[in-house]
């Protein structure tokens, strides 16, 4: 298992390199000019200098190499510097200062490091997306279990119908719909997410919870729909197995049979699906973040895209790619760990 994990980890390096190259080439092909916003009164030779200052005069492979060095070498160094200077767990080490004077990935919009933008927006995305995923899974599992156990019952049929609807309604419709119902008509919840809200006391905590309800609900609806379908079909497959009959014949209680024997075996594929769904939900969160103005990764990506801020777009897209590769890896390893019948040789 360990060899497999290590092999997969090593394999993910060329994958990530290829993805970064693909994104880089896509951005290179683009006709968008970062100098388009510069006033026309600026003389062309000055413009040329500005272009060189952005690193655009260099050949493509040099630009790509520099981005790689900045992302994979200088940014970790910056992190080490920060850790040794400011944190409790590494602060006792002497301050390193590895990255002093080194050029980081700079955003063309803010003229500051892109990583600062990432650090600002990552918690927002993680809070909203992570919370929605937890809520979605927590709702989906009982629904899936019960509708499989009572196959073809009213509950099952309603559940299947509702999950089908949740599966089909896109978040850019549920988002406005929820806003209209809960923010406009009922006035219970705020329609926009206030990103600068600081949670300091009980009142602000309540406010934070309130503003998270709508985006979390919208994202959780999709998660619930997908996962409960998987849970249901996995339970259905297992309920027909011989070992279930054996367990019942031994006189085990129905609760033990379903919740211990069947559930454990059904969770194997479902856990993989849960892990595989995490990157997809980050991608889908782009839409939800824009509906509710959550200042997360997707929101920042869209702003950078419209401003043709290529380093930021590149870095953000690549962070999405890292998330996908990472969770695919986790899913694969989990599958092997949970199911001893699976052998990777």
């Amino acid at each position: 298992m360990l060899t497999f994990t290590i092999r997969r980890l090593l394999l993910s390096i060329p994958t990530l390199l290829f993805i970064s190259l693909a994104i880089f080439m896509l951005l290179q092909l683009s006709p968008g000019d970062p100098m388009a916003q510069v006033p026309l009164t600026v003389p062309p030779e000055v413009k040329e200098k500005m272009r060189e200052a952005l690193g655009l005069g260099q050949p493509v492979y040099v630009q790509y190499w520099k981005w790689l060095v900045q992302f994979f070498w200088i940014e970790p160094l910056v992190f080490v510097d920060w850790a040794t200077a400011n944190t409790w767990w590494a602060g006792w080490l002497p301050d390193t200062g590895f990255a002093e004077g080194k050029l980081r990935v700079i955003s063309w919009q803010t003229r500051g490091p892109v990583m600062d933008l990432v650090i600002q927006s990552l918690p927002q995305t993680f809070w909203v997306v992570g919370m929605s995923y937890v809520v979605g899974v927590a709702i989906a599992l009982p629904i899936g279990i019960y509708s499989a156990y009572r196959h073809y019952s009213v509950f099952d049929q309603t559940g299947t119908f509702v999950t089908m609807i949740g599966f089909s309604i896109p978040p850019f419709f549920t988002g406005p719909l929820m806003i209209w119902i809960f923010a406009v008509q009922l006035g219970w919840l705020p329609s926009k997410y206030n990103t600068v809200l600081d949670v300091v006391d009980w009142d602000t905590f309540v406010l934070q919870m309130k503003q998270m309800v709508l985006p979390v609900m919208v994202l959780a609806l999709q998660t619930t729909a997908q996962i409960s379908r998987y849970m249901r079909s996995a339970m259905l497959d297992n309920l027909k197995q011989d070992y279930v009959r054996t367990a019942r014949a031994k006189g085990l209680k129905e609760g033990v049979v379903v919740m211990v024997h069947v559930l454990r075996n059904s969770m194997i594929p479902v856990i993989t699906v849960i892990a595989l769904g995490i990157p997809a939900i980050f991608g889908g969160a782009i839409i939800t973040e824009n509906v509710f103005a959550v200042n997360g990764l997707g929101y920042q990506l869209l702003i950078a895209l419209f401003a043709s801020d290529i380093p930021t777009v590149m870095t953000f897209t690549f962070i999405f790619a890292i998330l996908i590769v990472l969770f695919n890896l986790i899913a694969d390893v989990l599958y092997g760990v949970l199911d001893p019948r699976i052998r990777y040789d």
Partner: protein
Amino acid sequence: MTDTSPNPNDPLAEPIPLAPPTSQTQDIWRQFKQHKGAVLGGGFLMFITLFVLIGPFIWTLEATKLDIRAKDMRPIVWGLWSDEAKVGWNHPFGTDQLGRDLLSQMIEGGRASMAVGWAAMILSLLLGTAVGVLSGFFKRLDFILMRFTDLMLSLPLLPILLVAVTLFREKLSKTFGIETGMFILIVGVIGITSWMQTARIVRADVLALKEREFVLAAHSIGTRPGKIITRHLLPNVLSPIMVSATLGLAVAIITESALSFLGVGFPSDFPTWGKLLADAVQRMNLYPERVFLPGLLISLTVLSVNYIGDGLRDALDPRMRGR
């Protein structure tokens, strides 16, 4: 002993079949009809297709025609509970803030959304089937094509779609004109980024079929690989392709609407359902129906397509049939 049991040696005594044997197509159709959701979905999809295809000939009002005097009209049903609502039979679904008729916008937008959906789905099916068949049939290509598929699957698709559409919008608009250019671009990027699942399914099926006797027989009478693929393999992988086609249509419609919603889709005077929805969100507290109409149409279309997919999956699965 009475002679009621049929004599095994007498074929005439065997029970006579009541109906002629049914063909596979009939079996599939009969199973498909059992699935209520699928039949309803099929009906709705047919209705919506007719609605957008012949709609413009019946409701001849142009979608982009401005009529500022008749702006902000409500749908006709509003007249039932509110006397002061501005309604009229000349605009049964109401009008928007520039007086454009909503019914004709829905028809026009549906045309665009459905056209993009179908075209992107067909493109992704062609790509997926080609990659799947090639990598399943030719051992030499298998490794490289499957690694490529895996790579494509680990791309962050929505961000890449956004990037691609934003970056190439101007170039293609200049070459082909704004509307055709955008159509080609959106269909292209959706098709190119959604073929991977089809390719995987088709490859798995081709790998299994390749070892069967009829393919061996075809090989031994000297059939060329190209002919084996078109005559023997493709007809046999048709059913998984059809199921992934329905899924692909739903995904393509949603993706196009999402792109329009995020503001990177078609230009604003070219309505699609997603675009109409996105434009209406700003004034949603006053005119919620302008969000609900396109949203409902997208959701119902996708729902019916998903139900058709479900029904097809059951109908094409021989283990499910006859139950």
